[in-house]
């Protein structure tokens, strides 16, 4: 357990390690949630800045990765809240994301996720991309477990409708 104190030199080194380990994961998560590369870049950077500021408060009650993803999701929500503040870009379409074309026979999962409603997208990204359990997602989003479960069921149903034949039960 760490005691609450301000950021110090060790914290900067720690954040460097976190960036090295989780930087790409966080940026991809932000990209999937925000559907906007530029906003995702800002949100990912902001995530690590917030993490650095609150390292002293992190007491290891959850995994480092879950803690970081919670900051990332909350940062994405903040960005969505202030999305009006950016230059005109109200209806960004998934086609504008830098997605690699699916291989033959491979479902365009990232694109399908990007087309989900915001709430569904959040839970499905945490489930599929971060591979968190419904319980972990509920804790991370501070939502009731049943709400998360029903959102997951609904989101998976929508994915199945979009991705013909998609029958993943993760």
């Amino acid at each position, binding site marked *: 357990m760490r005691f609450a104190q301000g950021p110090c030199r060790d914290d900067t080194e720690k954040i460097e390690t976190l960036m090295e380990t989780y*930087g790409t994961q966080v940026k991809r998560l932000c990209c999937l949630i925000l559907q906007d590369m530029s906003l995702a870049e800002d949100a990912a950077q902001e995530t690590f800045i917030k993490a650095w500021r609150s390292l002293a408060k992190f007491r290891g009650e959850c995994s480092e990765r879950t803690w970081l993803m919670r900051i990332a999701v909350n940062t994405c929500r903040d960005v969505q809240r202030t999305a009006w503040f*950016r230059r005109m870009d109200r209806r960004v379409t998934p086609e504008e994301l830098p997605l690699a074309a699916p291989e033959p*026979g491979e479902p365009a999962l990232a694109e399908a996720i990007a087309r989900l409603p915001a709430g569904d997208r959040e839970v499905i990204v945490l489930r599929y991309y971060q591979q968190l359990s419904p319980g972990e997602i509920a804790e991370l989003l501070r939502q009731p477990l049943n709400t998360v479960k029903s959102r997951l069921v609904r989101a998976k149903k929508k994915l199945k409708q979009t991705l013909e034949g998609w029958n993943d039960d993760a």
Partner: protein
Amino acid sequence: MMMRDPKELLDRQLSGVNWTQGDRRAVLCTIGKEKPVMKKQVVTLLAAVMMLVLLMGVAVAATRLWGVQDFADRFGEPLPTVPVQEAIPQSGGDGSEMTVAATSSVWDGETVRMTLHCQPKAENLLLMEACLQLDMPVRNLDRDLPEGGTIADWIAQAGFTDVLGVAIEPMLNGAYMPYRVAWHLEEDGSYTLYYEFDGVADGPLDVRFQCVTWGWDAARESFCDDARNEVFDLHCTLTPPEAP
């Protein structure tokens, strides 16, 4: 379709999105500029006191609609030193479910800053930016609930029985252009939009706002119900700033 590990699939399809040295530098640069902790605490305390003072001011002025000055204060950006125009010559802006009116502008000959007030015609109808979704956190409306919650939760508590999605795009000389937009939900459920865009002209500037509405489509969980889709215009004429 062959089952694949979703994470593996997503990592492959997002292979163009990577943490870069630029990202790392941006984070380290910001961290390096942070003030020491004690100072930060003092600054936080001062900010809290200022926020309290501001909130008290807002409470007193709750019945007044927001104008360009209020948004400038929110952004922390000073306005150009030209008079705020409040009596703006305008026509149109009358839809079947709402009206739109230009309420204030500041135009320095280069950049236009304007506010539009959107008023629902029906009681208990809430107007919202069409890009919002009802399951988004209520903070998107600049509102809050003790336990957080979604826009839908807040709407139910606030007593609104209907919602209408609104998107208003400014046009100059018949063409769309990049703009900055912000909004403020007024106490009575109407809302004020703020626009900022380039507008270089020597004489009066004609601005057309194209207003589009949609109803909420519960099945698709977005404002895309074409049954309530309506398009109407608001024409405004801005006066050139006076020569110094």
